């Protein structure tokens, strides 16, 4: 019984009228955790009840604490009939379970009903008292921190990166149980919501256990997904990167190592799991000069056994349909997992050596790569990423059947195992020993399921590696010379004489020492120290393919037959669009393939950029098939002209002006534009030439498109239809926009969903393509128009997801953030700017001067005057007034948060004080909330309040890991919520659009409320994982499921930080003077 959960129901407000006769409600509350339920008294005849209940105490196992949500149900008491439910609140108490995060959950939560939406709000207080449990065999993993953020969180340092963790749990979907036929939709929805809450709690706990076993204390880049497999069940799966994180605190660089002990303990007993500390790393500080004791392992490792049996296409070593063509589609072959057997034993041996090594290492910064050296991170401390090979991806088509035994989900496990093995082998083929920016997803249509995984093959810095690392592949000579960080990652990791795919290599345009490919595709973010020219831009390839309707295995085969073609075409499209923009690299590439009954949709999104280390891309040349035809010639010339114009325009638009090169330095002639090598629309043909090519020669050249059939003409047209963003706008799908460094603080996160119904049943592929392309383009146009008041601004992290919810419907959902930037400074070189991105930040800077202002009472008085007073206008000047939001309330709350934080650290554990400061933090509502007062008084209070202060604290949301102009001072825990909404009065709610609009707004509101209750003021790394919409307009019904996640944080504006520093300075000098 290692934990005590306490909950207190304070009050409700804005409740719905439940009794038509009196226009009032007799509300009471049930508080349930596990199987224990408490009830409050009925508060009669009020829409704003004040229960002010006692503390309800639940004595529970910490395992339950992790799995179960606290369930609060608000009901209307009815003497004669059954009590009516008003709605529910589920509170995930996980954030209370680790010591550094929130200590209390307190605030107003929307009361949510799956049929009626939000119906009023309830004020709740929740606390947890944990007793230490030293049981080695415990099932819980309290204390492991989870982060959605795909980089090392701000304010932390990765002491050890342990590597990939994954887990999945399956269950029957309550929606498909027999009981669903007799219960109400509400009961069914609630059963589902609750189940998913439980499952994700369980999943998180299990992952946490794995992390503890590895000796880690956190999961970064945590990605959790639901597969609604319909009849065959419900799968919740998650992947992440296990780390040992250390908080950067005051005692700066003297790293005391509390983590070394448990970590080595775990490694001393490798029998359990076989963990291999493969490579360790020094402190990832960018400042330090490269330590010369590099290249320990070089001598031992020989060129890898290449296995080029599978043709790896250049960037996306594609779906390998040979795999999915086979009857494997039918049932998951359980044998796959065993392949890893011999590997494991090998690894174990290596563990021993690694351990010995580590005894000597002072920093103890180790990096463990397990069976799968995968990392869900997309950006890294500088110096960590050495070389990038290219995108690796794998897909397989599976037929779903009922999960017979939910406790043993091996089928799904085996499926994923299979895919991961494939990814690993692709990476190996590229000469890489690791995969970064790794992600997995599924797409389900009826009983067919496409599993996909993708990532970027990479070599991580060998300087940090321990001897005997399993996959030190690639040619060792590459490591002899530490490459400059601005171009090093572009250098090819594979052997140039034995290339896994045809590519044109040149010497790096930066250092002139290493070979680089002509283009580079990756799934990661642009490394912060990469040298680029101009700005980046959002590039999207879209594709529709018709498919015959079919069932079962036939269908699966048809789909897997189509997949490679789709991947190939998407790839070609991306390549063409990249050339059209005069760029040579793609970052953040994600390719999504979605199946419907009669079509497949493919959508590839990425951010294009010009890497100065890579050769300049040649133009695009159009070639006609029939030279004799004059008409045709004319036509082709026209197209060629248009293309050339577009390229020129784009160069200007994206400011792509690579520095001119002198021939002497190159030592090889700069390619003249006339000299062209013919590259057909396939890579394979040039492979035989390749060996003869003088590789030192910059043979990069025009990309030839052959106009031989209508398809090709279509392709070219679609190339040219992409409209550039209007003036003042930029867009990208990565964390930061390459080429823009001076963000201002205004931001607007948004979600947009569009569904198109195809009315014409007999569409051709071309017509479909056009429709799909227009859909995406129009969405972008809409965004630009709606956000025009924020100009100059950038749409960052544009995340498109496509679905085919039913026949003839195409659904596109987008989540992104618009951020303003200062136009004047955009020209500045990245090197001169403080880099926004996380880990390369000077770590000392990250220390937050919390302790400094600790107990100076003058700070307190200062702050209270700030609350009532006027905001300082000076520091707010640069903000765009139209969009940025109530800076005053905002600032107040950040100030208060800061104070709260401080109070917290000082008097931790003392309930009363922390509660007091907490209520202060909720700025104006504080009085009402901490002491329920009579209506008359509150009215009086209101009169004294001016309009300026809103009583709801502002919560910012962003899909990025940072908020410009601010510093994240605390991570409060992961937000992972799943909601179902259903209606039987669709028309009355404004049709599907009205229904979804309010649902999305409600989801935002609930996320914000949970964050605010944790004491946070922002959500970073926010994402909407799922948005499943099922409608039946004829029955006037609609159902929607939404899954969102993110990290709740407290941020402080940088201007406020300075203010604090100065205040502290002031007060200390004052006190000095006094004494």
């Amino acid at each position, binding site marked *: 019984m290692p934990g005590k959960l306490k909950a207190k129901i304070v009050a409700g*407000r*804005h409740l719905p009228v439940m009794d038509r006769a009196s226009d009032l409600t007799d509300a009471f509350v049930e508080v349930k955790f596990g199987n224990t339920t408490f009830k409050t008294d009925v508060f009669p005849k009020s829409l704003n009840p004040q229960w002010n209940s006692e503390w309800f105490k639940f004595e529970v196992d910490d395992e339950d604490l992790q799995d179960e949500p606290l369930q609060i149900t608000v009901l209307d008491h009815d003497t004669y009939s059954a009590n009516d439910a008003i709605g529910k609140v589920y509170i995930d108490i996980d954030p209370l379970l680790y010591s550094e995060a929130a200590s209390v959950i307190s605030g*107003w939560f*929307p009361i949510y009903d799956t049929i009626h939406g939000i119906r009023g*709000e309830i004020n709740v207080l929740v606390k947890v008292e944990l007793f230490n449990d030293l049981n080695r065999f415990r099932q819980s993993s309290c204390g492991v921190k989870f982060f959605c953020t795909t980089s090392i969180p701000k304010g932390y340092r990765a002491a050890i990166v342990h590597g990939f963790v994954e887990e999945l749990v399956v269950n029957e979907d309550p929606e498909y149980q027999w009981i669903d036929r007799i219960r109400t939709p509400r009961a069914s929805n609630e059963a589902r919501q609750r189940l998913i809450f439980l499952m994700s709690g369980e999943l998180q706990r299990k992952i946490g256990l794995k992390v503890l076993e590895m000796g880690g204390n956190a999961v970064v880049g945590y990605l959790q997904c639901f597969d609604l497999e319909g009849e065959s069940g419900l799968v919740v799966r998650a992947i992440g990167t296990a780390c040992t994180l250390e908080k950067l605190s005051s005692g700066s660089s003297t790293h005391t190592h509390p983590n070394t002990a448990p970590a080595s303990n775990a490694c001393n007993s490798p029998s359990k799991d076989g963990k291999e500390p493969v490579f360790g790393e020094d402190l990832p500080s960018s400042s330090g000069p490269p330590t010369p004791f590099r290249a320990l392992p070089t001598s031992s490792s020989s060129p890898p056994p290449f296995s080029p049996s599978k043709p790896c296409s250049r960037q996306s070593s594609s779906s390998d349909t040979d795999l999915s063509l086979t009857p494997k589609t039918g049932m998951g072959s359980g044998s796959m997992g065993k392949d890893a057997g011999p590997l494991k034993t090998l690894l174990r041996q290596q563990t021993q050596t690694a351990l010995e090594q580590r005894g000597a290492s002072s920093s103890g910064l180790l990096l463990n790569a397990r069976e799968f050296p995968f990392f869900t991170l997309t950006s890294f401390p500088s110096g960590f990423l050495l070389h990038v090979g290219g995108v690796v991806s794998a897909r397989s088509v599976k037929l779903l059947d009922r999960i017979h035994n939910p406790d043993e989900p091996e089928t799904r496990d085996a499926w994923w195992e299979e895919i991961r093995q494939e990814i690993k082998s692709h990476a190996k083929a590229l000469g890489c020993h690791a995969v970064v920016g790794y992600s997995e997803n599924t797409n389900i249509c009826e009983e067919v399921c496409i599993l996909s995984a993708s990532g970027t093959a990479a070599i991580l810095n060998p300087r940090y590696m321990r001897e005997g690392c399993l996959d030190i592949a690639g040619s060792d000579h590459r490591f002899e010379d530490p490459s400059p960080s601005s171009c090093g990652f572009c250098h090819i990791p594979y052997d140039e004489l034995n290339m896994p795919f045809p590519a044109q290599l040149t010497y790096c345009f930066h250092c002139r020492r290493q070979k680089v490919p002509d283009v580079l595709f990756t799934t990661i973010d642009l490394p912060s120290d990469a040298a680029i020219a101009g700005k980046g831009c959002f590039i999207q390839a879209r594709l529709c393919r018709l498919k015959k309707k079919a069932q079962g295995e036939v269908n699966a085969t048809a789909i897997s037959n189509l997949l490679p073609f789709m991947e190939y075409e998407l790839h070609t499209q991306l390549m063409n669009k990249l050339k059209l923009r005069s760029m040579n690299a793609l970052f953040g590439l994600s390719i999504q393939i979605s199946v419907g009954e009669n079509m497949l949709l493919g959508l590839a999104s990425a951010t294009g950029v010009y890497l100065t280390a890579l050769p300049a891309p040649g133009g695009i040349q159009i070639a006609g098939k029939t030279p004799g035809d004059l008409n045709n010639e004319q036509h082709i010339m026209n197209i060629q002209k248009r293309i050339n114009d577009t390229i020129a325009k784009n160069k200007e638009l994206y400011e792509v002006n690579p520095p001119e090169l002198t021939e002497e330095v190159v030592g090889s002639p700069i390619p003249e534009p006339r000299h062209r090598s013919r590259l057909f629309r396939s890579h394979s043909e040039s492979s035989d030439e390749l060996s003869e090519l003088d590789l030192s020669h910059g043979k990069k050249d025009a990309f030839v498109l052959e106009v031989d059939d209508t398809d090709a003409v279509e392709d070219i047209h679609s190339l040219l239809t992409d409209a550039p963003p209007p003036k003042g*706008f930029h867009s990208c799908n990565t964390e930061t926009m390459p080429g823009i460094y001076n963000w201002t603080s205004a931001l*607007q*996160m*948004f*979600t*947009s*969903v*569009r*569904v*198109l*119904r195809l*009315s014409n049943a007999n569409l051709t592929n071309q017509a479909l393509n056009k*429709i799909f392309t227009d859909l995406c383009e*129009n969405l972008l*146009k*809409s*965004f*630009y*128009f*709606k*956000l*025009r*008041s924020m100009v100059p601004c950038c749409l960052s992290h544009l995340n498109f997801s496509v679905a085919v919810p039913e026949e003839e*419907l195409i*659904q596109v959902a987008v989540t992104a953030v618009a951020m303003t930037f200062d136009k004047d400074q955009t020209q500045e070189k990245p090197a001169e700017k403080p880099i926004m991105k996380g880990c390369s930040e000077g770590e000392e800077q990250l220390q937050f001067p919390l302790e400094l202002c600790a107990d100076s009472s003058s700070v307190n008085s200062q702050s209270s005057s700030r609350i009532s007073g006027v905001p300082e206008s000076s520091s707010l000047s640069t903000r765009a007034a139209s*969009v940025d*939001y*109530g800076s*005053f*309330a905002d600032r107040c709350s950040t100030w208060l948060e800061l104070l709260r934080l401080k109070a917290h650290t000082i008097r931790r554990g003392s309930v009363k004080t922390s509660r007091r400061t907490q209520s202060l933090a909720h700025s104006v*509502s504080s009085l009402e909330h901490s002491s329920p007062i009579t209506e008359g008084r509150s009215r009086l209070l*209101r*009169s004294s309040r001016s*309009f300026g*202060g*809103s*009583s*709801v604290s502002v919560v*910012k*949301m962003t899909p990025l890991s940072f908020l410009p102009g601010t510093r994240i001072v605390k991570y409060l825990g992961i937000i992972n919520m799943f909601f179902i909404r259903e209606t039987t009065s669709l028309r009355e709610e*404004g049709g*599907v*659009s*009205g229904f*979804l*609009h*309010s649902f*999305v*707004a*409600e989801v*935002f*509101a609930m996320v*914000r*409320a949970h964050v605010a209750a944790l004491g946070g003021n922002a959500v970073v790394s926010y994402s909407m994982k799922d948005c499943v*919409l099922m409608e039946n307009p004829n029955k006037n019904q609609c159902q929607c499921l939404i899954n969102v996640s993110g990290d709740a944080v407290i941020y402080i504006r940088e201007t406020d930080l300075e203010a604090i520093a100065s205040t502290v300075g002031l007060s200390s000098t004052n006190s000095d003077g006094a004494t």
Partner: protein
Amino acid sequence: MAVELDVFVGNTIIMSEEVYQLWLDGYTVNDAVKVRMDGGALDEFEANADVVQSDTMDQYRTFQMCERLLHSPTKLANQLLFQIPPHRQATLIERYYAFDDGFVREVLGKKLSKGTKKDLDDISAKTGVMLKSCRRQFDNFKRVFKVVEELKGPLVENIRQHFLLSDKLARDYAAIVFFANNRFETGKRKLQYLTFQDLAFCAGQLINNWTVGAVDNMVEDMDVDLDKEFLQELKELKVLITDKDLLDQHKSLVCTALRGKTKAFNEMEANFKNLSRGLVNIATKLTNTKDVRDFFIDLVEKFIEPCRSDRWTAADMKLYLTHYTNSAHILDTFKHQVVWDRYMGVIKSCIFKMYHD
């Protein structure tokens, strides 16, 4: 091929004031799109008709969802569904409760009942304000009326607090409530020339000086009901016209003061008794509810019209009324100075406002 669903939701509310105004004015989505496109929305950011349509739809939906909250603006500040910056909240509320002077002029003094609501079609046709907008404005009046009806304390302050309106708008609403409560007649042809702002000013004068609230500020309806005791006391002023000596004395005092100061002196002298009778009669009759309703029409008929036919200027009017009021203080047998001041103070400022040259 048709767009089945199209939504765009921001974490912070996204709205343009232009579209909000179109929504408030009662434009349908299609009409609003037309207006926006004619207004040049297409030139910006390469928008096309679909983009404008989609944007307008999104905003209309947002406004519709907000409307429920706008009915009780204090909720808007602490609701959780929409994240609305405080300055936006203020705009939303202020604009929602704003009204067309033309429309309000039509319903001023009418009972805010279902019956009146049925006449909105006619008012809409007459004023050119769209029916939807008329309904909104009418419902706003009714809602404010209902809420403040049962509250203690000053009317304007109550409206300001409960509906979070600006001072100016709260005063206008106070006037509307005051007119509706006392059912002042404002629709007669003779009163048509008065604007809402004229009448609202008069209402403000009445509220500040003649209601219960002017003497006691913690009574229910204090600013809505006229002070009965005061109205009773007004009967005492009758002596000014019934007592012949007093009337003559009053006249000679006023005439002495005015002589040589205005061109209209002769008309003033000739009309003095008539005018004085008119004003005092209005005062003495105010105990009757019916006569209270006719207050404004009486002022026009008994005082303003005669003066206007004699071509008094506004300055003449001021001069005359000032001396008329002040001279009464010198009358030694006239004992009701306090009541007289309280009465004439309001009458004076009302007439100043209502007398258009």
